[in-house]
């Protein structure tokens, strides 16, 4: 075979691939409801690539943001079929939105991949009958996760096993191996479950002069696994002169539903939350879990995307979204009353993607922690790279998730911290699991837990 580059370069004038003028497709097809201008915002400069964890790991443009946008757009343009390979590249996306932080053109990648995925799931659901749908997604993610009570109940045996050290025994006996693969994995991700304490009361009064009235969002998974962090958050808010309301009628944020294409349940949850928090009459809705916070902040966008015609819905959900603050963001805006208790600790703060990228909350938690007397904040390499938790990603893309966990762990350990601080449940679980595998006993806590200890003058203990 010969191949003459000089002659093969001229020749037939062909299609201009990916022409920007390709007509957007009707909403019926996959990705069709995406605002096509959002694709056009991408100028194909590639500045986002090295910010993308999956690109860093694979070096393949198909696994980077620019490539994924190109793929999605080509599908929407009808230029490319959504083959299993294309799917695999899109599935490998963590939706960590690191690319958004890196992009100078302000491309809203999350507003491309999320609706694209949702419409993929819808299409799948339409194809598959309920019976042979993926049982794992259906039952674990769908029926269990969103409901804090059910989840606590489901986790009770695990807690008991951990307390009795039976989990170790089962692990040794290999019994765990006979559980379905993904359940095994879930089991391996459970952190050491702490007795979370009683549910939060509906109202906790401000201590000292009152500065604000806020509502606390407690969520589903978080309330089941991290109630102690909720308590800490509430106490820190009280210390800062906030009346804290915990509306009983609040529900799961709906992120899992939305991401799996169940628009209507997602909207229903969103509306329930809007009603619950509206009734509370607060200055801000404070969230201490990054993932939930970014979903709540996106309510307005999602309403626009799913029900573009309903102005009232938009106002209702957008109104809530505007009030949502991550707790560190809120405290930074309010001005933290400096805690006094000394915590002599070398700490690393690990950015949760849904805080740093999705909500652009980066300096605030660091600034708050820096005010704790005695606490030394260490910096790590690649702080902006996802740990691989990414919601249910650690269950659905175990291999990449593990690679990223190892990468993150290596960077964390290089700083030699005594405590790791992070503001998201998923990250916390992922890092704890990686630490257990590496047989390193470094506690992972929420920033509010450390502030709480400092306010209370309680020393940090590894328990």
């Amino acid at each position, binding site marked *: 075979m010969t191949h*003459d580059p000089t002659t093969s370069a001229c020749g037939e004038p062909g299609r201009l691939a990916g022409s920007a003028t390709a007509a957007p497709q009707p909403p019926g097809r996959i990705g069709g409801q995406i605002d096509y201008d959002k694709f056009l915002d991408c100028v194909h400069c590639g500045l986002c690539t090295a910010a993308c964890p999956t690109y860093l790991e694979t070096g393949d443009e198909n696994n980077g943001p620019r490539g994924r946008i190109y793929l999605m757009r080509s599908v929407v343009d009808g230029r490319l079929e959504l083959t299993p390979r294309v799917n695999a590249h899109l599935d490998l996306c963590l939706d960590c939105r690191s690319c958004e932080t890196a992009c*100078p053109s*302000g491309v809203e990648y999350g507003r491309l991949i999320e609706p694209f995925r949702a419409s993929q799931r819808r299409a799948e659901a339409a194809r598959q009958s309920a019976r042979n749908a993926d049982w794992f997604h259906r039952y674990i993610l769908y029926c269990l996760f969103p409901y804090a009570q059910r989840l606590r109940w489901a986790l009770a045996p695990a807690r008991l096993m951990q307390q009795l050290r039976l989990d170790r025994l089962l692990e040794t006996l290999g019994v765990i191996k006979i559980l379905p693969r993904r359940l095994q994995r879930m089991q391996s991700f459970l952190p050491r479950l702490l007795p979370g304490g009683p549910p939060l009361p509906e109202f906790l009064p401000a201590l000292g002069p009152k500065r604000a009235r806020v509502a606390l969002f407690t969520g589903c998974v978080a309330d089941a696994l991290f109630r102690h962090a909720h308590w800490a958050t509430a106490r820190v808010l009280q210390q800062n002169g906030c009346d804290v309301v915990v509306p009983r009628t609040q529900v799961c944020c709906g992120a899992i539903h939305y991401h799996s294409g169940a628009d209507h349940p997602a909207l229903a949850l969103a509306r329930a939350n809007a009603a619950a928090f509206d009734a509370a009459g607060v200055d801000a809705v404070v969230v201490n879990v990054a993932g939930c916070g970014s979903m709540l902040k996106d309510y307005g966008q999602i309403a626009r995307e799913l029900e573009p015609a309903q102005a009232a819905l938009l106002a209702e959900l957008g109104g809530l979204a505007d009030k949502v603050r991550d707790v560190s963001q809120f405290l930074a805006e309010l001005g933290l009353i400096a805690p006094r208790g000394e915590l002599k600790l070398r700490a690393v703060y690990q950015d949760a993607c849904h805080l740093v990228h999705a909500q652009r909350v980066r300096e605030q938690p660091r600034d708050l922690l820096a005010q704790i007397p005695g606490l030394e904040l260490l910096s790590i390499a690649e702080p902006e790279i996802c740990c691989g938790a990414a919601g249910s990603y650690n269950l659905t893309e175990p291999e990449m998730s593990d690679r990223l966990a190892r990468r993150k762990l290596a960077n964390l350990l290089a700083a030699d911290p005594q405590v790791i601080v992070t503001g998201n449940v998923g990250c916390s679980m992922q890092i704890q699991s990686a630490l257990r595998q590496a047989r390193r006993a470094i506690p992972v806590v929420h920033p509010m837990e450390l502030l709480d200890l400092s306010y209370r003058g309680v020393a940090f203990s590894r328990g």
Partner: protein
Amino acid sequence: MTTTDHDVSRSAAGVGAAFLTRLESIFGEHGLIRQPEELLVYECDGYVIEKNVPDVVVFPESTEQVVKVVNLCAEFQVPFVPRGAGTSLAGGCLPVGGGVMISLTRMKRILEVNLRDRYAVVEPGVVNLHLTQHLKGTGYHYAPDPSSQGACTIGGNFATNSGGPHTLKYGVTVNHVLGAEVVLPDGSVVQLGGAVEDTPGYDLTGLFVGSEGTFGVCTRVTVRLTRDPAACRTLLAVFNSVREATQSISQIIGAGIVPAALEMMDQGIIEAVEAAFHFGFPLDAAAVLLIEVDGLEVAVDDEARQIIAICQAGGAREVRQANSPRERQLLWKCRKQAFGAIGRLSPSYCTQDGVVPRTKLPEIQEFITAVGQRHAIRIVNVFHAGDGNIHPILLFDERDSDQVRRVLEASEEILLKCIELGGSVTGEHGIGVEKISLMHRLFDAHDLDVMRSVRQAFNPGGLCSPMKMLPTAGACGMEHVMQKRPGRRAAL
């Protein structure tokens, strides 16, 4: 100039099955891409006007693998093109004629850092910023800092001789490369230069830098590390007229001060940047200069004072100094991400990259304004002013074909004016496929002949990056296919 859309078509034959089988035995299933739906994203880089899908993409992880693929290409006479991060704005990674794309993204180890001897050895796929981050805290850094440094690779920088804001004082990539290991198109591995200085013979390292992938594949680079400056001062000078700003630039340089960086943004850019970053730029200012001086603590304040005085005498209505590292960072972020922010002004834009002698900045600036008016095209400007490197950005709406035509004409007029003023048509983005047609304007037939001879020494069969940088003498004239549409928002 035609307005029809062309594709840089691939060879009808593509690559054969025997070739692919051999390639697969080298790279395995995970080291190679050959499915059309996965090749699609490799059809262009940061330059989106010309596209062509490669026949196959390989991801070597070692020099040996690069040698193998290059040898195979030689055996089967298949063209190949190296690719780093694909941020080229000149179509440097366009696989003209199809063939193999050699992606260096998996060769990204930092192999050695030697501070005492001021060098580091890296693989080509190391991202520029990652090297800098790796060196953080050592007191040393890698000086070339292209605006794309968060993504572009050292191999790509090496191949394009990248510059950046701080190259005014510290020089461009070639001034910081000591040596390289390269795989030539005949499959031989040659070490050029190295960790010791003054290796005898021709400076092939210097010649290879900036050869835009047409000499072979770089598989290892030895770079010079630079001491961090002991101190720096970052100033922002605000002017009511662009002329005053550009004149102040030549005053500063003329006064014998070499700032670490000297950048200019005009009103249009200020507006966009302010919308994006809320720095507090005065929206009614005609131009701002971002000036940084660095050096010894005992010296920087004096220099800063001198610059402030020059700017004030030159008509600056205000000169501010960044008061904290965070403020400095934000200022630089505004500058480095200025291009991205342009998306907020217009649906499409096209960035040019010309150079003039620094004293000609006022002249070229006025010319640009006139060209914009004549063609009824809005042009905003951000300059690496200290180097005379201009980046006029032409705003347009690509759906309007007449605007597109006017943008192309205006761009060409500006670049030709740069030549006329004694400058060049590219200060950092390279020729690639984008500016091949302008090479004739800059160089005469002899110059180009000599350059062809030089390429012949490295790349005699022409399989490596065909149809790049030099117009083909007498061949089918790729250059006529160029320059049809400026592309949607072709970024900086």
